[in-house]
């Protein structure tokens, strides 16, 4: 079972930019409702494979995506 990571954003527009950049780069990411325990900042967060965090961060930086934090979600599918 993969461990998922969640990227948070300040705005949903940034979440859509992130999703677009990562999908274009071939990462199997999904937009999900932001887990309440993590934030009330923006309603949409991005779920990714935690093992790919360095590559995900690199793509987001390249795409000028501002994030509001990366979180590990243990044991979640």
């Amino acid at each position, binding site marked *: 079972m993969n461990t998922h990571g969640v990227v948070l954003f*300040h*705005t949903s*527009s940034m979440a859509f930019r992130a999703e677009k950049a990562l999908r274009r780069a071939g990462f199997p990411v999904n937009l999900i409702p932001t887990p309440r325990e993590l934030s*009330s*900042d*923006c*309603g949409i967060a991005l779920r990714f494979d935690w093992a790919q965090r360095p590559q995900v961060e690199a793509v987001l930086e390249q795409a000028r995506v501002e994030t509001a934090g990366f979180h590990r979600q243990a044991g979640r599918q």
Partner: protein
Amino acid sequence: MIYLDHAATSWPKPLEVVRAITDFLQLAGGNPGRSGHRLSVAAGRIVYEAREAVAALIGAPDPMRIVFTSNATHAINLALHGLIEPGGRVVTTGMEHNAVMRPLRFLEKRGVDVVVTPCASDGVLDMADFERAVTPGTRLVVVNHASNVVGTLSPLAEIAAVAHAAGALLLVDAAQTAGVVPIDMRAMGIDLLAFTGHKSLQGPPGTGGLALSETVDAARLKPLVQGGTGSRSESEMQPDLLPDKFESGTPNGAGIAGLGAAVRWVTGRGVEAIRRHEVALTRRLLESLSEIPGVTVYGPTDADRRVAIVSFRVAGRRVSEIGQRLDEEFDVLCRVGLHCAPAAHKTLGTFPEGTVRLAPGPLTTPEEIDAALNAVKQVAQS
């Protein structure tokens, strides 16, 4: 029917625009950026794609700096009310629409120094007067990119240079040019650009926006409306985030879906190709109208110096009579009167009667122009 009222609103809209709107309403109609479920995400994606499409079309630095509004008037109001404090100085021209003049006259009563610099009777700005008016400390220069009455194009490069030399920001009203005249905000030195979706961009009414260049400090631009944004929901204070700060309340998602499709349609066809087509039609109108006895054509005689907007009058005739006869007897639809721009008509010498305005679009044919010209000839003669 010959539709020559594209300067009021383009018609008919491309089928792609219609389909994008119905798809949004039937397939992806969640509340964009709010809920996080798949329909909300699908809707938000469509809105974001439209932001990217618009930014690419006008050379905006960042899609996050495209603020969607309900039209160009709303965007201009956001810029003027958001930037100008009492005691500040704003310089504009004698060819502006009431979308600019009315908020400026309102602000003038609140202590803003509003300077209107003159244009010649063909609508061309007097650069010497303008340069004198833009004194150091001027906060904002606001000009149209093209006149909605006679289509005269503004010399934006020169205007930007004058504004920036004085430390002022430049707000451009691109209601008549976005989608038909190439725009590159960065290259042209445009700090704020107000656009509407429903004219040359071929989108639906109820869409438009204000594009902010990186020269505009968003923290110093006050929002017109405060409220929910789907972001920073724990706070009762308006967030400073772009574009959320200026987009409170559920957006016109269906309209923005249509706008995105419209911008893709325009981009696919090519702004420069559309421009060439419309210049050719304008040249045909200008040359033939001026040969009709009794007809006076306003604005620059050179079609390259204007967008596809041609205003004229017939000696001794009411413009309303001409408009009505063109519609009822010849199926030619146009707009007559003051076109919401009394200041421009005073400059042109056509106040208070106004003009008859013919405004072709990207799909208007030369044959339709000839038929309309023939109709004007007949109306002018009898």
